[in-house]
């Protein structure tokens, strides 16, 4: 991707380096959350306590409402907290603070407040964690005014988007893809550059079909795209990176060429952000300009525990209208993450 030298790195470490860089750069950046002093549940803050001490790497009680709300309060006096929520599902214990306070204070107070928080919320399926530890509800927050919604899919984006998130004056909801923590990747050596919000990664190029995706399913989509390419079918793949704002222009330009749209996300299909993408494109280009517009998402069922049932919810294959109906390889990197929940 980059002309500069790169290093191999896992996604979790890429995120850790981004936090490290920004904490060194800006003394008002700090982290609060359960067990962050021990490196965080996933090792995403490993070693930071030693360098920054317990006033900037703050291990908290199990008090999600207050983790979220205190982060906001600290932002209102001019610090830049990274609010670590351990798992997205636990954010449900802090929704008043997120939805009614963080997302609203700037507007409701007429611009006086600067809620410059990053809320990190590792989400998605991971090792048969079942219904209360596997949810993906990122679509909800695109519907919520006042926030930016970030869904990285690889180490480089994790790092660059996290740098942007920490520097942003907006509340940034940052969905770490749990299932990809230990996925191998590369980042460019040297300073981690911020990646702007709202700019998709054009991950594969082609004319046969426009695929739009984000977060943990992206590697599977790319594997499928590679297989199709071997069959001579080249698809345009956009990894959105952020679903609010999202890169409508890039998708529209591609779709104007391919006339075929497939949105793939691991969240439940009904009411997911895929619907928004389709509705927006239909509105922008007109139905006549589009031949096919489909979604591939999870069925509207909670995430079950048993492997064969959980697999039914995972997007492990691409179905119609993708020509060739090929199966992608199953996830190969679910073994080694530190998480002990």
């Amino acid at each position, binding site marked *: 991707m980059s002309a500069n030298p790169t290093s191999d790195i896992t996604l979790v470490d890429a995120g850790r380096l981004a936090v490290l860089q920004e904490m060194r750069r800006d003394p*008002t950046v*700090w982290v*609060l959350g359960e067990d962050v002093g021990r490196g965080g549940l996933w090792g995403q803050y490993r070693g930071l306590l030693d360098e920054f001490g317990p*006033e*900037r790497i*703050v291990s*908290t*009680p199990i*008090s999600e*409402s*207050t983790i*979220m*709300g*205190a*982060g*906001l*309060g*600290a*932002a*209102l*006096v*001019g*610090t830049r*907290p990274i609010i670590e929520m351990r798992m997205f599902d636990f954010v449900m214990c802090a929704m*008043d*603070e997120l939805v*009614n*306070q963080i997302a609203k*204070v*700037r*507007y*409701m*107070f*007429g*611009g*006086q*407040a600067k809620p410059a928080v990053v809320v990190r919320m590792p989400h998605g399926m991971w090792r048969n964690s079942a219904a209360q530890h596997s949810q993906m509800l990122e679509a909800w927050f695109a519907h919520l*005014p*006042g*926030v*930016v919604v970030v869904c990285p899919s690889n180490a480089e984006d994790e790092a660059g988007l996290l740098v942007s998130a920490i520097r*942003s*004056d*907006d*509340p940034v909801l940052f969905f770490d893809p749990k299932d990809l923590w230990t996925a191998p990747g590369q980042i460019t050596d040297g300073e981690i550059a911020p990646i702007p*919000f*709202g700019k998709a990664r054009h991950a594969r190029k082609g004319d046969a079909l426009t695929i739009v995706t984000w977060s943990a399913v992206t590697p599977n989509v790319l594997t499928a795209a590679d297989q199709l390419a071997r069959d001579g079918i080249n698809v345009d793949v956009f990894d959105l990176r952020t679903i*609010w*704002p999202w890169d409508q222009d890039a998708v529209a330009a591609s779709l104007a060429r391919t006339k075929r749209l497939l949105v793939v996300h691991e969240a439940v299909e009904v009411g997911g952000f895929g619907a928004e993408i389709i509705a927006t494109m239909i509105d922008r280009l007109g139905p006549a300009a589009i031949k096919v517009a489909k979604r591939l998402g999870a069925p509207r069922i909670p995430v079950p525990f048993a492997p064969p049932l959980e697999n039914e919810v995972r997007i492990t294959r691409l179905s119609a209208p993708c020509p060739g109906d090929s199966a992608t390889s199953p996830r190969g990197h679910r073994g080694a993450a530190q998480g002990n929940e």
Partner: protein
Amino acid sequence: MATPGGAPAPAGDNLRRLTDLYRMMVRIRTFEETALEAYKLGEIPGPLHVSFGQEAIPAGVCASLRQDDRLTSNHRGHGHALAKGADAATMYLELYGRDGGYCRGKGGSMHIADFSVGMLGANGVVAGGLAIAVGAAQGLKLLKSDAIAVCMFGDGATNRGPFLEALNWAAIYTLPVLFVCEDNGVAAHTETRTVTAGDGPAARANAIGVPAVTIDGNDAVTVDETVARLVADVRAGRGPRMIHAMTDRWSGHTATDAAAWRDPKKVEAAKTRCPIARLKSVLIERGLAPAVLEEIGTAARNEMHAGRAAANAAPWPSVPSAYDDVQSVGAVSGGR
């Protein structure tokens, strides 16, 4: 009442200080009487919560605060804002939803905020300000400021989870927070004692690890003295403290609530405990000239009537401003 930047005046038997307290209480009362009158005439939209009978608490609390101390408030926040140093006329503009109001017409009474004087906002969610206050204190501590955070909430808020969480949080990190529970005995349309078990907010706070005292919140002198002492503790880094101030709410929950269920005798009895009348007798006893008291009342009336009139005549915010201040990246523009 806040003494910007400087050290607070010493509490106690200080006529000048008590007169200032009195002036603030009268201003709060007059602000809300004026607002209520305007509300009944349809001049003010949205919900309006007045605090007749509770004025000693915000006045007494803020008398020991500096401007750079931060305060979080609840839905009944006019007194908190005025006492912290907000400007009445700008508040009226906001209550009226007009251009130039504190929130540019986006908040109204329930979301009054003036960050320039450390007033971090009224809050439409009961107990919503508690976590914000402890976070503000934590941020101040990280920034090595010696400013403190003050958190105002009602008796009703002590039955919500954030009460437990925020007090525990403040205690474990030894944060500079003063919690102030304004206990007027009611929460919306319910007598709080009917839905609250145990020995009350102070007992809960003490058990959670925040030293707390219960005081007569209708006695401005007691409030002032207690706060001065506790603020000194808090500012000195001795950790959080809580005041549980007993008071009365004379009126209904909102400006449109007649509170017909309340025993009129109890409400009448509450009025005999008026904190303003009480401080007035103290001042007279201590020899303050009646003319000064009179002058304070007149000044407050003039201030509030001018504020009301200006707000009533002020222009609405421009419609495109509805799209301002949502977020920096990813904001939508007008015209759908």
